């Protein structure tokens, strides 16, 4: 098979194209995905029905009654070729408070042990880095943040929990996330974020968007409760 050159436009379905802008998790590739999505935003609600940005690709669902894949290919090329603006400089920095502890993050000690670090070192490594929202999916408001320091990267649990509490701050491989609602999940839980990530009933529905920069701010037990946090019961992992 020949090497793929980027950008690479591939058919996804009868009314969808997917644009690949790279093959791995890199801020520059993600920024390019973001730039393309923003460039095409003006067609959303008309020719374009849905835009689904992810790590290194953008899925575009179009309305086949108003345009076709050839028209869309042209618009994609035009948007990619236009060298306008460094959108990257506009990227927001969002700070998320996180109460890291064994009572709020039942996998913290185990993750630290496996990494040969103290829990404090894990907390420092997790909260000192700046992350990027690479994708939103899996569940409403679930933002995939990357990348955590290689030292605290941890594989998913062998047996996922049936119930991960809302607000759980978690790590899987080199990704981290805050669970926006109670859901099943296999990520390692290291803390709790008292700030709601997703609210179906109030605007804005989501605290963050793809392309935003994120930093976690360690908070203590007291501030966690002051900010409206609640300690759930965690499912014990065998």
């Amino acid at each position, binding site marked *: *098979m020949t090497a793929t050159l980027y950008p690479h436009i*591939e*058919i*996804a*379905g*009868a*009314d*969808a194209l*997917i644009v690949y802008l790279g*093959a*791995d*998790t890199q801020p520059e590739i993600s920024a390019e995905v973001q730039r393309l*999505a923003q460039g095409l935003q003006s067609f*959303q*609600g008309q020719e374009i*029905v*849905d*835009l*689904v*940005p*992810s*790590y*290194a*690709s*953008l*899925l575009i*669902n179009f309305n*086949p*009654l108003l345009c*076709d*894949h050839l028209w869309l290919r042209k618009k994609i090329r035009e948007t990619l070729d236009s060298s306008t603006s460094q959108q990257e400089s506009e990227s927001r920095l969002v700070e998320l408070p996180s109460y890291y502890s064994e009572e709020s993050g039942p996998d913290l000690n185990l993750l630290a042990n496996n990494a040969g670090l103290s829990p404090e070192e894990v907390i420092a490594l997790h909260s000192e880095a700046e992350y990027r929202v690479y*994708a*939103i*999916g*899996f*569940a*409403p*408001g*679930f933002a*995939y943040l990357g990348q955590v320091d290689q030292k605290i990267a941890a594989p998913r649990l062998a047996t996922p929990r049936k119930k991960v509490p809302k607000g759980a701050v978690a790590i899987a491989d080199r990704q981290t996330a805050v669970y926006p*609602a109670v859901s099943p999940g296999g990520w390692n839980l290291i803390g709790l974020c008292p700030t709601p990530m*997703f609210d*179906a009933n109030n605007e804005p*529905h*989501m605290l963050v*968007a*793809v392309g935003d920069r994120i930093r976690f701010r360690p908070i203590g037990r007291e501030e966690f409760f002051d900010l409206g946090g609640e300690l759930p019961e965690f499912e014990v992992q065998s």
Partner: protein
Amino acid sequence: MQGLTVIAPGILSLLQDAGRFGQQQIGLTTGGPLDSFAFTVANRLCHNSDNACAIEVSIGGLTLESSIDSVIALTGAKLGLKINGQNKVQWQSHAIKAGDKINIGFASEKNSGCRAYLAVAGGFDIAKQFGSQATVSREGIGGLQGGPLQKADLLPSSNHRDLELLSLSEEQQSNFNSSFNSNYPDLVELRVILGYQQNHFSPVKQAIFFSSEYTVSDLCDRMGYRLEGPKVNADIEGILSEGICLGAIQVPADGQPIVLMNDRQTIGGYPKIGAVFGPDLAKLAQLSAGGRIKFSAMDINDAHQELLLAKRQLDQLVLEAL
């Protein structure tokens, strides 16, 4: 408030409009009717817009009591419609009066399909969430409480008197288009537009995929239909997570294809061979476990032509006054 009250909710009855669009960037899937042709015709029989909120009845067993004078229509799977115990014809509209009991039964013969659509004149007047009334149970969004209809739910709708009753002739139902079928065979051909990671499926695997028969497994719901048949593994196990379009066919490590439906997750990391042509998804959605499938390849330009043609045929659909 008036409308239709749920006496018995049935196996799985969901309020659906045409779907929730433009929200995938925050992780919300589209929802909407699995058989959009039957859904659209149900609405048109009730003089509604194509985006009006109706009920998708899976398997059957829904009973409602009306507190309005209005018009209803049931399309899709042959589950049987009764008003006050009297059998009524599907694919046509019927007048109802306050106090009437509406019952949707269960399929009594083979090849009846399993998704029916009950529309009411004016639609159901419920609040939109994220621009749509479509219920997605997995997300807890849409409908009345984000889930299936429950006993005693009141589905708000207003009086609509003196509306013309309409019907879709059987001839039209069968002649309409081979891809839209009001008879639901248990062996269907699904046309596939190759795409996504198609190059990671070897020519041999693709030949197997297009020449074999697949069976719908027990794992089939509004999120996806998991199929069983000859394995068609890709030469890669996973990919960087990316957007999943409606009808995408993903193949996990076990080599068994999964066709992703309306409530699919918006992004995922399994290789995909392409996507089922939209109008054919209705045929798949009408199958239950054990239903059989054959795939055939379709060119994207042909697909586009067919979509335009299907839209024109739908708009030329003659609804006759009864």
